[in-house]
């Protein structure tokens, strides 16, 4: 499975880079969907099948539809798409580099075990059991988060009618 791991992660990184480099929003969105696909492939290699399917269902099937809708609302034409300018690119690259350095430092000094694969049954049943015994509180808090999002939607739509 190592070969598949390198193929998936390589293609994922390539697509992710293209998401940023590409100037057309719809193409970027489509590439992002591909990124999610390859990520799902990586989950499959870890035998986390449920996570892989959820990855596709939620991110590729729901969140990206939302993104696409926003793009359709905005009326993007290729003539209006801004050219890259050097200062913005420089700023972006430096922030990205700083983030990468920070991430690397954190990883280096972290106490996380490196390399040892966790022996964890990622089947849907064990996840269900864990979710409702050990991780009840985060689970319930998730519902509050979703509620907050829903209230935000209500607010948005009220603004629109006023």
């Amino acid at each position: 499975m190592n070969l598949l791991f390198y193929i998936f992660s390589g293609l994922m990184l390539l697509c992710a880079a293209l998401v940023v480099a590409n100037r057309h929003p719809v193409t970027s969105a489509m590439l992002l969907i591909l990124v999610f696909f390859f990520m799902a492939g990586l989950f499959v290699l870890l035998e986390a099948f449920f996570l892989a399917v959820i990855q596709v269902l939620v991110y590729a099937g729901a969140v990206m539809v939302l993104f696409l809708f926003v793009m359709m609302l905005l009326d993007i034409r290729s003539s209006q798409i801004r050219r890259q300018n050097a200062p913005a690119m420089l700023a972006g690259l430096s922030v990205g580099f700083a983030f990468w350095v920070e991430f690397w430092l954190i990883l280096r000094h972290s106490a996380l075990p490196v390399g040892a694969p966790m022996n964890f049954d990622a089947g849907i049943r064990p996840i269900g059991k864990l979710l409702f015994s050990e991780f009840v509180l985060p689970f319930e808090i998730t519902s509050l988060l979703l509620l907050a999002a829903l209230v935000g939607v209500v607010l948005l739509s009220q603004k629109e009618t006023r």
Partner: protein
Amino acid sequence: MMTEPMIAGLWTDTVSFFGVHAVAVVLLKIAVVLFALLGLVSYTVLAERRISAFIQDRLGPNRVGWFGLLQPVADSFKFLLKENVMPAHVNRIYYVLAPCIALAPALLTFIVIPFGNTLAGEPMVIANLNVGVLWMFSIASLGVYGIVLGGWASNSKYPFLGGIRSSAQMISYEISMGLSLIPVFMHVGSLNLTEIVNAQSHRWLFLHPNLFLAFLIFMISSFAETNRLPFDLPESEQELVGGYHTEYGSMKFALFFLAEYANMITASALMVTLFFGGWQVPFALPESLSHPVTWLAPFVFQPVGFVYILSFFLKMLLFLGVFIWIRWTLPRFRYDQLMNLGWKVFLPMALANVFVMGIWMALSV
């Protein structure tokens, strides 16, 4: 693992673990199912045309071949030989990509459905995934992109409106579709479709009152999900010309068309699998059917395997018939009615159904 040559390692491992014979059998299964699915799609189109003609007191296509049975062949050649019009105003890449994105998921969803028990010891399902139903949902949810991109890439008013409408409709009903099935999984305790079929060996699931409600919600949602009447607002000929595929012609249009029918077939197959016992038959079969047939000795086929496949196939045809029948019976919904039905009727109903199912199961233990 790291040291061996990786491609060769993968291949030899696969073959040595399962054997060359098994790999060949699986590839054969894939080929047969994909071709059968595409064949069934084209004959469903013919059936739709003949049945709609019958309902409207017309004849329908009856000239090509016996009773028009060769019409799909003629149609496919016609689609292949038509001019490939690519209008000047479209976004060329997405215009061509959209029909492919619509069709590929439609073909991929079918593979987790068990269409028979076993044949010569080989389970009659291509991929027996543990997350079976979720796989279907996640892949089917990608079908939206074909439609919304088709509408957008056409760069024309009607297709754009059709694409937007259709995607909003599909996502709305995706929720009630997913929620309606939760009671089924509570009852069976698995998402694996083979296990769901096996759980129905004594009693088909639609006989359970809660699950019957689930079935109704699921069926109506699947009409909306496949853009069929009474929910065919994305196309609605009278207001949007042809909806998202107005600017499409020749094979590119045909792919959209095939995708719609493939989705219909998958929805029927899923309803049969989840609620109507899958490949099972409602009565005891004669014992003699399970003896192997001697003249097929090298393969050791048992006739009972074919009976199960036939049973599945007939049930699926029944649901396809319902799809076609409804199309020519009910008028189209208005868009606000459609959204109301999805969000204000089905969503609360499906949630309440989950709740009642939980109480029911807690009490019956």
